[in-house]
């Protein structure tokens, strides 16, 4: 199995994703430059965090037009596995591969901290190894992470089981206080209807290295690996 990590010029979590997948989880991983048009026969495409093209406009709004994104969109439409973290999630929403949008945090500030999340469903490729009664501590770092979708879209997502991760407190309660950015329904991560495209604001790759004292993120990335085996 081969991972490809898309590198936009303003990506800044590409190294972290490659380190986590390659050095910690011992997977084959290659960087894919945004100007390329070849996915190098990767099985899984990851869009990392960062500020793709500066994101002075809306986050991800320019990145979706980069040369490699056409390939990513084709790949996803053919059923290829794609996941985006943080800015990667924003880009996937902008590209129309995921429903909804990510708005400015409700407090209008960038927020970086450890945050608990828990799976809404444990039958998706990214939550296979998670347990609904065991919240995971995963770092967040974003200014535009407030998930929003219209009522209609949301109810369709619920019916299809597309809500994957929700913000909660250490005990797993879905409270308002444990919602860091004002996301609708405490949503932290979603997938598409076919369940081959995923996006989440929290950074699982930041919580995999035992030397940093938190490996909860492994549950998420290892779920992907397991779902392929």
């Amino acid at each position, binding site marked *: 199995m081969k991972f490809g990590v898309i590198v936009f*010029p303003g990506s*800044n979590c590409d190294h*972290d994703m490659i380190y986590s997948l390659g050095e910690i989880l011992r997977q084959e991983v290659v960087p894919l430059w945004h100007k390329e048009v070849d996915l190098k026969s990767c099985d899984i495409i990851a869009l990392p965090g960062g500020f793709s093209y500066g994101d002075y406009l809306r986050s991800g709004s320019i990145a979706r037009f980069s040369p490699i994104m056409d390939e990513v969109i084709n790949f996803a439409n053919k059923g290829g596995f794609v996941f985006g973290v943080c800015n990667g999630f924003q880009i996937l929403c902008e590209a129309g591969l995921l429903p909804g949008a990510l708005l400015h945090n409700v407090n209008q500030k960038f927020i*970086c*901290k450890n945050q608990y999340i828990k799976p809404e469903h444990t039958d998706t490729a990214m939550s296979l190894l998670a347990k609904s009664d065991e919240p995971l501590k995963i770092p967040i770092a974003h200014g535009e992470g407030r998930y929003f979708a219209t009522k209609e879209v949301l109810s369709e997502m619920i019916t299809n089981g597309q809500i994957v991760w929700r913000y909660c407190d250490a005990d797993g309660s879905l409270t308002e206080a444990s919602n860091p950015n004002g996301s609708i329904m405490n949503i932290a991560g979603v997938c598409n209807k076919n369940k081959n495209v995923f996006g989440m604001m929290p950074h699982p790759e*930041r919580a995999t*290295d035992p030397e940093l004292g938190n490996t909860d993120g492994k549950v998420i990335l290892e779920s992907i690996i397991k779902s392929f085996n």
Partner: protein
Amino acid sequence: MSEVTVTLETAKTLGLNEEEFELIQKYMGRIPNFTELSIYSVMWSEHASYKNSITWLKTLPREGGCLLTGAGDENAGLVDIGNNLACAFKIESHNHPCAVEPYQGAATGVGGINRDIFTMGARPIAQLNSLRFGDIKNPRTQWLLKGVVKGIGDYGNSFGVPVLGGEVFFDNSFTTNPLVNAMSVGIMEKGKMISAIAKGKGNPVYIVGSSTGKDGIHGATFASADITEDSADDIPSIQVGDPFQEKLLLEASLELMDTGAVVGMQDMGAAGIICSTSEMSEKGNSGMIIDLSKVPLRQQNMEAWEILLSESQERMLVVVEKGKEKIVEKVFDKWDLNCKQIGEVIDEDMLYFHYKGKLVAQVKASTLVLGGGAPVYEREYIAPQYFNEIKTVNPNDIEEPENLKDVADFIIQHPNIASKKWVYEQYDTMVRTNNITTNKPSDAGVINVKGTNTALAVTTDCNSRYVKANPEIGAMIAVAEAARNVACTGARPLAITNCLNFGSPYNPEAYWQFVMAIKGMGAACRKFDTPVTGGNVSFYNQTTINNITGPVFPTPTIGMLGIIEDKSLHTGLCFCKKGDLIFHIGKVRNDINSSEYLYSYHGIKNSPPPYFDLDEAYNLNNLLLQLSGANLIRSLHDVSDGGLYVTLVESAIPKNLGFDITTAAEVRKDVFLFGEAQNRVIASVSPDKEQDFIDMMIENDFPFSLLGHVTKGEIRIDDISFGFIRDIKEKYETALEKCLE
């Protein structure tokens, strides 16, 4: 171009004095034209030339085994950290821009310091910010604070460097003139450093990065004048930051390093093109011919002097080995960056600037720069009146408050003491996945050096109030506290960078503060064997309160780098387990001088710095390293601002534990809890290591005492409950937010 006739008056308008104007004419053998005069005015400004500080800076220890470059020789200091790696680090001020435009001022401060690091070929892996503001209740202070924090966050978060530490301090003396000091730390392969040098006749000179505009013209001169009510009129002197361009420059620079095609590179900060062309030339004993018509511009109708002096951000000057132009151009093309050849290196000590087919300026490179022809001054200094009037405060002359629990609540919610969570949660502290202190907080930021057994510890420290009270001792304390913070993580201090924020050098009392601080800093750095690798000097910091203008609290911020050779020995600051023993390392002293308690609670503004002894501080540091090296302690946390009570609370908060302690009989209870006598540390020790711990303390003959033990969540002092940690944590963590929102 309409050339202005240059007279002494013109020179004075540009910030030069008569003596300097004469010196320029002597160097040139004629009257300079306006462009040339502008060149001298920025290059001889305080900011670029260090003319009023260099004499004293040279007295600091600037050599040591671990240094790979001399202080001030390159864009930043470079230290050997083993494993064939080197660490580049430096701190810089951006005070004056922040006073008038906090958001861009802070953003470009972060940009500038990171550019210093990656221009050398090192990738920035950590950022620290040392900030000083006026009274937090003042609406202007709130505007400044919010702008500065957002500026630092927006720039650094996008650029992708984690914030590992810093300070925020409030005092009226900073009301109109905040201090914004940014430090960056980077690592690189040893021996791969790109020098800031121009040499090799015929080698092409490139400008890369952003286009040049009219922003920041005379920024260096602006930074070298007093901040006044009219300073807002100087807003065009402020630069505008673009972190995306900076990110592209970073990646392109690091790729460039691997091509071997680069002779030298320097970032364009203060004084723009003229600064980098002259400094790089002087260093290589060469010169340059530059055609300013070739510089990519973002604005029409720019004059030659404007292009030369522009401080547009995210630009660098690169000298390329002749014949390797294509290699370099290809790298910048990949990153969609401007990369324009604007001239070439010559083997003559001259800079020739052409514009639109005309020679517009010709100056000797060496006459422009520090260490060359730039003037060097020795200024007068005299101890200020206030210093002679300061008297030690005898705690017994201060009435002891009846309810110490109220004092405790006051102290932990004071903006200088309370958690800075409101600030640091706006910074990305985890990008690059190397911050070990997220999940194991410690007295300094600790960075994992991936692929090695090593971790680095970084901290910024300075208690401006102590320095005001006694600049010599205060500066020593700043160095010693930085060293102690580093040692509390288990790291050995290696070297420092400094950011020297003072008032006007032409004010003998403010200059006295500078001189005395340098003396104290030098003594402490020699003791700890932590050479000064570089940094910057920011003079002219002053505040006007009730129509009285005076210097800000003198603030020589120390940025220290330390190394943990075996990262498994990294020590945190938090209590880990109920039942662990709590020890006080150091001597309990009857001292409340300059404490937050005395200053803010009792309102006594003038007292000497708290107790300090340099030899004792050094011995304590060695002891701390022995303790963590032998794995005898569970946590170490330095007793500093706010005193012992605050130290204990900070250790208890991360794991929601409490403590039960008994105060010492020899001093009053308030002195014990809130005094800030230096050279003290709180250790928690697991009961099975108690005997080994005591043995080591006795062997080292260092004073210590058992305070009590860690509890499940209640805080008890002499059998009186001070409340539960969850409530105290809530107060401590939300106090700043409550002031601001």
